[in-house]
């Protein structure tokens, strides 16, 4: 499907097989919960976030992107100890922004995916900190070494993870 945008620039919107989005999201949530049990270092991964970014960049629809982010975030909140809406707000913002970005730039190149993931990771954390400070009154740092390392690791993983998820696209 092609969407005609001003200046005759064509941006491809990807579609996926039925149940792909739901299944990937579910798998990401489960792996997010299980992997740290067996691999302690896996706790640094943010698979639900990577999924939100991927589908937001791929679908290029801000509405669906933000709704997907909200759903993923609320699901993550339900499985964790954080209040409902904590991750939901953060991933809603990321899904909306990612979808808005995806409709303007090429997000297929690995380097762009790496950089975009890095940026969205920090954006996600920023929203989380702001929400914590504003609503919970907890003063968490905006930036720290552990966070930078995590953002790099997740960005690297995202390059490969996104390539894997590309297999589930419907051929146009």
């Amino acid at each position: 499907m092609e969407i005609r945008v001003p200046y005759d620039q064509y941006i491809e919107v990807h579609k996926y097989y039925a149940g792909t989005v739901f299944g990937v999201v579910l798998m990401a949530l489960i792996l997010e919960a299980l992997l740290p049990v067996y691999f302690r270092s896996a706790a640094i991964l943010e698979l639900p976030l990577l999924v939100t970014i991927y589908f937001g960049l791929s679908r290029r629809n801000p509405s669906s992107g933000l709704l997907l982010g909200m759903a993923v975030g609320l699901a993550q909140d339900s499985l964790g100890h954080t209040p409902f809406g904590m991750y939901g707000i953060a991933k809603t913002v990321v899904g909306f922004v990612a979808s808005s970005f995806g409709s303007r730039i090429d997000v297929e190149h690995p380097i762009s995916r790496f950089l975009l993931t890095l940026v969205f990771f920090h954006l996600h954390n920023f929203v989380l900190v702001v929400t914590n400070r504003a609503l919970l009154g907890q003063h968490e740092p905006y930036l720290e070494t552990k966070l930078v390392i995590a953002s790099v690791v997740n960005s690297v993983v995202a390059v490969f993870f996104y390539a894997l998820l590309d297999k589930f696209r419907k051929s146009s």
Partner: protein
Amino acid sequence: MPTPSRHRSLGLFAAAIAVQVLLLAVQIRRGQQVRLIRVWAIESVSPLGRGAAWSVDGVRGLWNSYVALRHLREDDDKLRSEVSALRLRNAELESRAAEADRLGGLLGFRDAHTEVQMLAARVIGATPDPSSSHMVLISRGSRDGVRRDMGVITPEGVVGKVFAVYPDTSQVLLLTDKESGVGALLGGSRAQGPVRGSGEPQLALEYISNDTKVEAGERILTSGQDHIFPKDLPVGTVTQVQPDRHSPFLKISVKPAARLDGLEEVLVLLTRQEFAFRKDADKTDKKDADKLAPLPVASATQPKTAAPVPPPKPAAPAGPPKPTPVALPRPANPPAQPKPAVPETPAVPEKPDAPGTPDAQGAPDNQ
């Protein structure tokens, strides 16, 4: 074909964020375990309430400070005049109350001495020039039964005597006048001597010999020898005793018992009947009893209704016949006396070593 509306996605984004924020607010408890959403609700409404209160206070303040003050000046003037009128009224009432107290005192004194005929009178005038004479004008005259040389007293003590009588008024010569005098005696030693006025507030007790023991504070009473005042009425109190080197007599200053500088009501003694000087009708005031001279045994046992003629003293020279208790006689021809009279003439006795008590004489008519 229109592109997907950016506004719709933004609206959806805002709605999604808002819903999740509300969701968080419902779950999160702050401070005193109050849900965050309740805190937000209160904090969102309270500024409106504060603003409304501020507005109302502002309008009210404006009204009270400016609009309602339009009639302030008129109200102020009205209140000031009301306060002035009330002050005058208060002063008038206080004066009346004081007058009532004084009249009550007079009435009590008169009730305490029902055996004595007295006539209450109001002081209605005074001497314009106090340096020349000390006299007051009272509101009773010949029509009320006042006669010349009648004694005038107050519940505190002797005031003076009637000097001149008119149909509705009378002049009273005060004790402090230079021409005034009264037969007196010391309350302690009972030594007798005239008390004269000098034009000053203090009186002088004369012809008390140097060897008489006189102390400051000793009471001076009437002796009755002047035939004007009954015996044992308070005249005053000794304030100063000084021996006179050039004379065998003491210089004794006496403070009058009655307030001669503030007379408002007085009592005119219509008779010379002796009586026990008491202030109140019901009971004697303890304080005042201390001030009163101790009553001689003779006068205390005298019957109140009768007015006997005092026994003549052997040393007393022949004088006019004794007056009856009912009214003061007015001798037609004052007899010649070997010794000077007390009330009128200020002449010094010829023989200083024969003090004696000067006799009262009928004074010549006032011209």
